[in-house]
């Protein structure tokens, strides 16, 4: 009998290192008005923000948990530490960042990436940004890339923040949006002036190091008319036995004729609950492109939403989800066509293995005003064994007759014929299957930033080693 090759889990050593936190830096756990006031004081919030936080807390307390999707019963929000004091002020010089934090990000390759291929970098460690820098020529073009708190206290941007903050994702949206409104901390603010085309990307990296804590960063990006930006977001955390929570929020305002590409590689450890909310509103002739790779976390609820609000606005969503042992990843996208001649395209792949559960969930809404709109959704799922699960739950709500909407989905296994063919060309069964899975994910992986595409291919190779036998 053939011996089964066993690799119990992927090699996460790149992410699974940590430095002990000084617990005096923690505010108490739980969600109470006292904690909220303390966070507000710690961050020297303006009065409107202090009130906003407290109002959000009220909404949080009144809002029920979602009654669909993966179970989050094991997540005890009352035991989550929502805020950890920063060890140092935010720096623009890498040498000024504390050693342990510096070492963390160096091991993740962030400063190297900045030197080689990025226009600017932000790095958040637990609750606060510890580093933010943008290339001189980028800053000179009028692009603003800073942490949200600094922008809120800067009189040049304070009104802009007040005007846009949680307007796309109001705290009433769902329970964890309300929680975010109450305890948010950190995140990036990006402003791209009209006509500025940023050829190289900006990247924010979010690292949650502390045990039993939450990260609630808020990313706010505003693109003025005819501008272009590629923004990359990366997330990771070391593994603990205690549950961690990520309830961030991303709000993207894409101006007339502007184009924003938002790439995310989510690689949280498998004790994390990733309950993140992302939303973009796109004006006339504008475009939002989402590229999303979901590989980590214990439970994920993640459905970036695009609101096509101007004539001819476009949205594209390209996503891949890889659910392994102990993971229940519920991912997808939501699109609202709210203006004439808008178009959207969604293309996703999901892979389930070693008992992992992968769910593709989507909605396409075409409102009465969206005459002449088009939408196409394509999702494919691959099951790699009998103990995993893969569900596809799309929905379309169409309210005008003058539109064209298409949807297709497929689910299946690796074809024996394809494996046989590749083996007849000299590949081992393991290599053949890994190649087929890479091919399955190819049109998504080629949309990822190069270093992440390579990482994803490695991950597939590692996962596939455990599947033969």
């Amino acid at each position, binding site marked *: 009998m053939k011996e089964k090759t066993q690799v119990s889990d992927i090699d996460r050593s790149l992410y699974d290192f940590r430095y002990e936190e000084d617990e005096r830096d923690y505010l108490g756990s739980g969600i109470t008005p006292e904690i909220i006031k303390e966070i507000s004081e710690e961050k020297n919030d303006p009065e409107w923000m202090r009130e906003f936080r407290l109002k959000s807390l009220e909404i949080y307390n009144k809002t029920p948990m979602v009654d*669909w999707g993966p179970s989050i019963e094991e997540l005890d929000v009352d035991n989550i530490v929502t805020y950890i004091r920063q060890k140092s002020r935010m720096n623009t010089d890498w040498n000024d960042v504390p050693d342990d934090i510096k070492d963390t990000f160096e091991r993740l390759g962030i400063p190297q990436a900045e030197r080689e291929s990025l226009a600017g970098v932000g790095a958040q460690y637990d609750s606060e940004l510890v580093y933010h820098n943008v290339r001189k020529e980028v800053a000179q073009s009028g692009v603003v890339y800073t942490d949200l708190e600094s922008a809120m206290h800067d009189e040049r941007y304070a009104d802009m923040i007040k005007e846009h903050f949680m307007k796309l994702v109001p705290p009433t949206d769902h329970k964890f949006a309300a929680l975010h409104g109450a305890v948010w901390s950190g995140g990036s603010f990006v402003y791209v002036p009209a006509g500025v085309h940023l050829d190289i990307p900006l990247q924010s990296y979010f690292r949650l190091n502390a045990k039993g804590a939450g990260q609630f960063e808020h990313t706010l990006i505003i693109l003025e008319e005819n501008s272009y930006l590629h923004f990359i977001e990366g997330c990771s955390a070391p593994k603990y036995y205690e549950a961690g929570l990520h309830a961030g929020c991303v709000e993207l305002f894409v101006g007339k004729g502007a184009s924003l590409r938002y790439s995310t590689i989510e690689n949280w450890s498998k004790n994390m609950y990733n309950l993140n909310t992302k939303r973009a509103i796109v004006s006339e002739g504008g475009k939002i492109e989402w590229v999303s790779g979901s590989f980590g976390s214990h439970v994920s609820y993640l459905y970036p939403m695009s609101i096509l609000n101007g004539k001819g606005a476009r949205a594209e969503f390209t996503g891949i989800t890889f659910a392994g042992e102990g993971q229940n990843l519920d991912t997808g996208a939501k699109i609202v066509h709210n203006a004439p001649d808008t178009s959207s395209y969604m293309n996703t792949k999901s892979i389930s293995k070693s008992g992992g559960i992968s*769910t593709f969930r989507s909605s396409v809404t075409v409102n009465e005003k969206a005459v002449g709109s088009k939408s196409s959704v394509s999702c494919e799922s691959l099951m790699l064994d009998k103990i995993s699960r893969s569900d596809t739950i799309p929905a379309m709500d169409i309210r005008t007759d003058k539109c064209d909407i*298409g*949807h297709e989905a497929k689910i*299946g296994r690796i074809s024996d014929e394809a494996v046989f063919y590749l083996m007849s060309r000299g590949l081992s069964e393991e290599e053949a299957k890994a190649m087929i899975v890479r091919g399955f994910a190819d049109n998504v992986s080629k949309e990822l930033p190069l270093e992440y595409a390579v990482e994803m291919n490695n991950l597939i190779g590692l996962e596939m080693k455990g599947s033969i036998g």
Partner: protein
Amino acid sequence: MTKLNKLPAPTFGWLGVNFAERKISDNTAEPVSISEGQTVRTDITADARYELTAQENKELTVIMYITGEDKRIDISAKAESGAKLTLVQVFDKGAFTASALSAEIGDSAQLSLVQLYIGGADTVSEIAPVLSGYGSTFKADIGYLLDGDSRLDINLAADHRGRKSTSEINVSGVLADISEKTFKGTIDFKNGASGAKGAEKEDVLLLGEKVRNKSVPLILCAEEDVEGSHGASIGRINDEHIFYMQSRGIPEDKIYELTARSKTDRIIKLIGDEETVSRINKSLGRSDDDE
């Protein structure tokens, strides 16, 4: 209010597709059993209950023509090993109807379901076949033609449990005026249903600025060795099709009429039974000789 047509895996609440909430009363009808005779026709105008059994290696066809006032129709069907059960249901214009069909399909047995919804004030229809037998087959051909303020909510969930079971679901229809339709179609591959195949297709023609269409095609999968697919196409008649037909001398309003008709004619042809087809044509204001 009672929650009917519950989606097997609920989704975003704001879409309003997780269930259909209606006020219903108890079904007061005595059950009627049908298990013999090759073709049985029945008219339903009030509450009704049926127990249908296609016995081992035999064929049974039941044709139900449904009209009349508020009513509930509950059908429990069984296709025994090697049997073929064909159920035709025509929901003609009428008042509120809550229909629930549960079915069990045995080894190498087949259930063919043909449904046509013509108008109807408000119809909530649940279809729940369980493909428990090895090589069992479920085939559904569903058509609808809704106008005025008609509402239709269909929840079909094909539950694959048997090895090499097969389901094929084809739905096509037309929405006009201010009608609303929700079609929830689920192919559910349970663990152990190895070699199962399921395919679902929906084609919706929209012919009114204020129509509302919701389509929710689910695939739930807990088995590796399966093939599942679904596709949906929703919208107006495409411009190339209109151009082609106009180039053949057909005026635009006739093009819409012919295209709409083609969506239901496929189902009417499948029904076949002359008497039933004649009633459908009469209800649609067509002559039996119309082509």
